[in-house]
């Protein structure tokens, strides 16, 4: 297909580089520098999608970020992405895009029946209709609405692309590289300030690229280019195109998304696709310009109706005609600029001006060029289905209420200009109290909340000279305050055509007997009649009207619709616009890809991975790993074809009969030093600590102030004022913060230092009846006999030349020891233990066997100390000192905590001694009781007891102390299981604890 709407001598595209692309399966050609939109229009394609609700044909409305219609599904390098604006997507070789929201095709769309049913689809239709019958919701209504709604399909594949985050600090962040952005950046940069200048589009310069102005004897475009090239050379300036500052957050932090590779056929090696910048700026200059707003008239959503500024941009930047027979419909001078450009390029437009007799340089120029201008004229309705074919026009009375005779004029596009709306989103997000500016009929920033200043058109200043002047001054003044430099810049001479006032007219009345849809919000199909219904039904607050009708709620967030919506509400309510007020502007200003927000924190990078020094040994020996917080721990060491159940059973059994070794490096370790260390422990733990001798360890439980168990572990007195505390893997960081809190804020008089040493020590637990024999061989010079190193004893030893700490502590309930060496020696220690342990049939064991061993011993761990239990619940009440106060003690006297039938830990065995009990199941008295069946407790941990060779679980049960011997039922609705069980003691193996002391 030829680019029959492309002009030859105008535009900024690279005609030496022709690109091919596909739209809805058809091949087209465009040029480097095109957007998908400009290339399609060059090929005469105006039908790009179907509307959200009525499935009406959709074309192009704008040329950039404000585009409400032209949303496509993009295919690039084997990936697909929904919600891409064709007006923003730059063309690349091989680009593929498809229409959304239509089936089977954009030309013949079954959903378009909604357009004819529209009388039945008023505002709130979905709320009103799909309420009943209730049972219809899941199977009929929801799937139907889901299929009908939505603009594209997200890929379910893993995104191969890479996204990055970057943190940056600067003196001035300037958002937008139009005249105000360039002028302020230039002035600030000359004063040596650190400046970041962000431009959303690929080309810098904003409106300077398309307006006929002269700055210092250069065209606007030339001036912009010279300023940009000078800024690029300055080391204190960062200039970013394709970068949208989309959010203004607290403490002058802004977030910008930089689209690095989206305009390329594929991302370059080592490059990210997009980068999210977190920018902390001392001052923010908002130079985001303004967006042209439409005038509302009948069928104003027909493809070919578009903003006049967009038509001008397509012409001047891309050399593309949006039509060859244009009708310009305007209430201000901007429409004339577009008309003049058409005329200069050999196309004869017609101007309809709602004003009676405007007088300005621009109007005169249009007249002199011989353009056909009809004053006091309006477009009543566009005619044509998939493209504008003609327009019904009429003269309008001076009070703008009465239409004259309707005439039809042939045209293939209608370029609308309803004046300009400042882009105040960032200022408003910052907390700026916006104010309504009568002369431009729009809101502008008012009082700044943070260090933000809005310049130029974004501030409602629409003349170039004023914009440049105030921007130079502001850039100079703010940078001077920061850098103390005072480099004056001479202000260039500015020539621009003078405009006159606009007509405060925004909506064409319906002609008698006609019921055209007049759309306010194009993306969500919200028409004038929908707002009228909402108000009739009693919605008053603009926020409610928005949510009920979905005005301004789509992905374009009402950039072209919000003000006209406000005008309508205020007219019906007979209020002024500022009294109605605008809805809240929230970030993001424009859609941001989830990938950019997530950044590098995906997959294994979603959290740090910590590995013990023995990790590579585990890998080499077929360890199957499990996440334990951020740590990777061996779950079991697979032998042959065995599964988790078989492997862990083998490992646990070997501990009970021979000796096993377990990597316990992940346990939290805190080094505690100082003359008041014992006093600190005595306050933190529930049991007594003042009399613990040097060379001894003690088990302790610590509570939160509310009496709930926070953590448990052993602490060893290494020397007079030196203790080694261990915590559970999960609570290590919290316990350290907890200790620091009390030492720094509550008891600063205690002379104690705490520091984490988790990473400094590698730990190995050796457990089993033969562990002492092994230990003796590892430390031949030490006396590790039951007398030399009794239960809960501690000594230092020499492990083949390596200094080691030996603790006689046990989690498995067997005779056991824990050896710690400096982390660098961890692998050496481990290999020595394995090597020397061969004669005792040593086997490494993982966390699954570790759990089995502790569960059948009735030792509590994280699944019981789950932030909901007190010491009594875990049968730890024996550790509560009566003689001293400790953290959380006072809470233990609370009524619920001392009630007679308080929950307590018990053991659970299935009556058939075969059925495994799922963790998290409930315990009930009667399995056939009506729902909700009163719950007596829950299964906290389950294992296959290797000692008894049957399933065994721990449970926390109401009135646990009186439940031993009772027969209950375990119910797991999730797994559809009902298991008759018997309640037994939680100490299922070695209830007297003889083995650890043997």
């Amino acid at each position, binding site marked *: 297909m030829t680019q029959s709407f492309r002009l030859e001598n105008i535009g900024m595209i690279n005609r030496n580089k022709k690109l091919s692309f596909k739209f809805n399966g058809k091949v087209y050609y465009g040029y480097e520098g095109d957007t998908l939109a400009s290339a399609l229009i060059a090929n005469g394609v105006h039908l790009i999608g179907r509307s959200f609700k009525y499935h009406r044909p959709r074309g192009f409305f704008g040329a950039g970020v404000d585009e409400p219609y032209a949303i496509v599904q993009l295919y690039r390098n084997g990936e697909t992405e929904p919600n891409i604006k064709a007006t923003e997507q730059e063309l690349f070789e091989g680009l593929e895009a498809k229409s959304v929201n239509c089936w089977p095709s954009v030309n013949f769309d079954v959903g378009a029946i909604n357009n004819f049913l529209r009388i039945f689809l008023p505002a709130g239709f979905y709320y009103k209709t799909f309420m009943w019958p209730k049972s219809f919701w899941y199977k009929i209504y929801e799937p139907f609405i889901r299929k009908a709604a939505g603009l594209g399909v997200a890929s379910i594949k893993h995104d191969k692309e890479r996204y990055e985050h970057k*943190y940056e600090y600067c003196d001035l962040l300037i958002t937008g590289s139009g005249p105000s952005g360039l002028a302020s950046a230039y002035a600030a940069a000359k004063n040596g300030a650190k400046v970041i200048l962000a431009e959303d589009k690929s080309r810098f310069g904003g409106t300077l690229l398309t307006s006929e102005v002269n700055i210092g004897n250069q065209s606007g475009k030339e001036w912009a280019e010279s300023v940009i090239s000078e800024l690029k050379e300055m080391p204190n300036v960062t200039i970013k195109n394709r970068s949208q500052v989309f959010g203004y*957050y*607290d*403490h*002058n*932090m802004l977030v910008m998304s930089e689209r690095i590779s989206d305009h390329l056929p594929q991302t370059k090696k080592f490059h990210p696709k997009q980068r999210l910048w*977190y920018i*902390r700026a001392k001052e923010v200059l908002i130079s985001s310009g303004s967006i042209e707003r439409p005038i509302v008239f009948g069928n104003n959503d027909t493809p070919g109706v578009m903003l006049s500024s967009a038509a001008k941009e397509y012409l001047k930047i891309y050399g593309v005609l949006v039509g060859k027979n244009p009708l310009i419909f305007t209430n201000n001078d901007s429409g004339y600029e577009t008309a003049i450009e058409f005329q200069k390029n050999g196309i004869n437009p017609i101007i309809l001006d709602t004003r009676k007799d405007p007088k300005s340089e621009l109007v005169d120029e249009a007249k002199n060029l011989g353009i056909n201008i009809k004053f006091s004229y309006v477009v009543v309705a566009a005619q044509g289905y998939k493209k504008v074919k003609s327009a019904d026009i009429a003269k309008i009375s001076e009070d703008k209420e009465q239409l004259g005779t309707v005439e039809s004029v042939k045209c293939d596009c209608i370029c609308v200009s309803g004046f300009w709306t400042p882009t105040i989103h960032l200022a408003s997000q910052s*907390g700026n109290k916006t104010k309504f500016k009568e002369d431009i009929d729009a809101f502008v920033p008012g009082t700044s*909340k943070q260090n933000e200043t809005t310049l130029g058109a974004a501030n409602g200043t629409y003349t170039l000279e004023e914009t440049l002047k105030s921007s130079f001054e502001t850039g100079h003044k703010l940078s001077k305050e920061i850098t103390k430099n005072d480099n004056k810049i001479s202000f260039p001479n500015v020539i621009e055509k003078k405009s006159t006032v606009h007509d405060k007219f925004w909506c064409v009345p319906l002609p008698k007997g006609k019921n055209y849809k007049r759309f306010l919000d194009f993306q969500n199909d919200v028409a004038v009649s929908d707002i009228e219904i909402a108000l009739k039904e009693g919605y008053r607050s603009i926020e409610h009207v928005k949510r009920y009708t979905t005005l301004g709620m789509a992905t374009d967030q009402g950039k072209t619709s919000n003000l006209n919506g406000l005008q309508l509400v205020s007219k019906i309510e007979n209020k002024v616009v500022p009294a109605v007020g605008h809805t809240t502007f929230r970030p993001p200003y424009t859609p941001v890809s989830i990938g950019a927000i997530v950044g590098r924190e995906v997959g294994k990078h979603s959290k740090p991975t910590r590995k013990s020094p023995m990790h590579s040994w585990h890998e080499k020996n077929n360890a199957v790993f499990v996440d334990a917080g951020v740590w990777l721990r061996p779950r079991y060491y697979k032998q042959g074809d065995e599964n988790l159940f078989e492997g862990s059973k083998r490992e646990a059994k070997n501990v009970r009969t021979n000796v096993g070794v377990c990597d316990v490096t992940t346990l939290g370790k805190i080094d505690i030093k100082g003359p008041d260390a014992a006093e600190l422990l005595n*306050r933190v733990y529930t049991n007594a600590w003042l009399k613990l001798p040097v060379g001894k360890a003690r088990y302790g439980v610590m509570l939160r*102030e*509310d009496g709930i168990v926070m953590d448990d572990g052993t602490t060893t007195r290494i020397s007079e004022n030196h203790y080694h505390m261990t915590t559970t893997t999960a609570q290590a960081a919290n316990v350290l*913060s907890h200790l*620091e*809190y009390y030492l*720094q*804020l*509550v008891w*600063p008089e205690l002379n104690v230092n705490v520091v984490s040493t988790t990473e400094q020590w590698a730990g190995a637990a050796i457990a089993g009846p033969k562990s002492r024999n092994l230990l003796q061989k590892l430390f031949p010079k030490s006396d590790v006999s039951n007398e030399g190193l009794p239960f809960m004893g501690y000594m230092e030893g020499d492990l083949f030349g390596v200094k080691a700490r030996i603790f006689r502590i046990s989690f498995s309930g067997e005779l056991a020891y824990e050896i710690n060496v400096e982390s660098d020696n961890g692998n050496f220690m481990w290999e020595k233990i394995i090597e020397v342990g061969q004669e005792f049939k040593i086997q490494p064991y993982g966390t699954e066997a570790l759990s089995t061993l502790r569960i059948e011993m009735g030792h509590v761990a994280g699944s019981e100390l789950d932030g909901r239990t007190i010491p009594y619940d875990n049968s730890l009440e024996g550790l509560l000192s009566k003689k*001293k*106060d*400790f953290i959380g003690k*006072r*809470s233990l006297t609370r009524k619920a905590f001392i009630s007679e039938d308080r929950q307590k830990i018990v053991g659970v065995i299935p009556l058939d001694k075969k059925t495994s009990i799922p963790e998290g199941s409930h315990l009930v008295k009667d399995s056939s009781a009506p729902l909700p069946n009163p719950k007596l407790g829950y299964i906290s941990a389950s294992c296959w007891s290797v000692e008894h060779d049957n399933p065994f679980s721990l449970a926390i049960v109401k009135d646990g102390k009186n439940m031993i011997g009772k027969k209950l039922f375990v119910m797991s609705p999730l797994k559809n299981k009902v298991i008759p069980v018997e309640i037994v003691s939680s100490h299922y193996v070695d209830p007297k604890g003889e083995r650890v002391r043997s």
Partner: protein
Amino acid sequence: MLHIKCPHCGMRSQNEFSYGGDASVKRPELGKEVTDQEWDDFVYNRKSLRGKHWELWQHLSGCRQWIKIERDTATHEIFNTLKANEEIS
């Protein structure tokens, strides 16, 4: 994201800190008899203030010091920061 002036380290981003609640809460002295009401006030009862509020933060990924910050809970404006041992005036 807030920008917090740690009295030990200077201006740092919020993601280096963790929140620690109302700074005006005083723990009853150890061993002292307290009524249920006093204890509940210490453990549970907090005013959910709108406006200026002294609160505790810990510079977790920095100097690990607990600090006191006077912040407006509605606007996030920070007026003052103090070290753990400095009294709120």
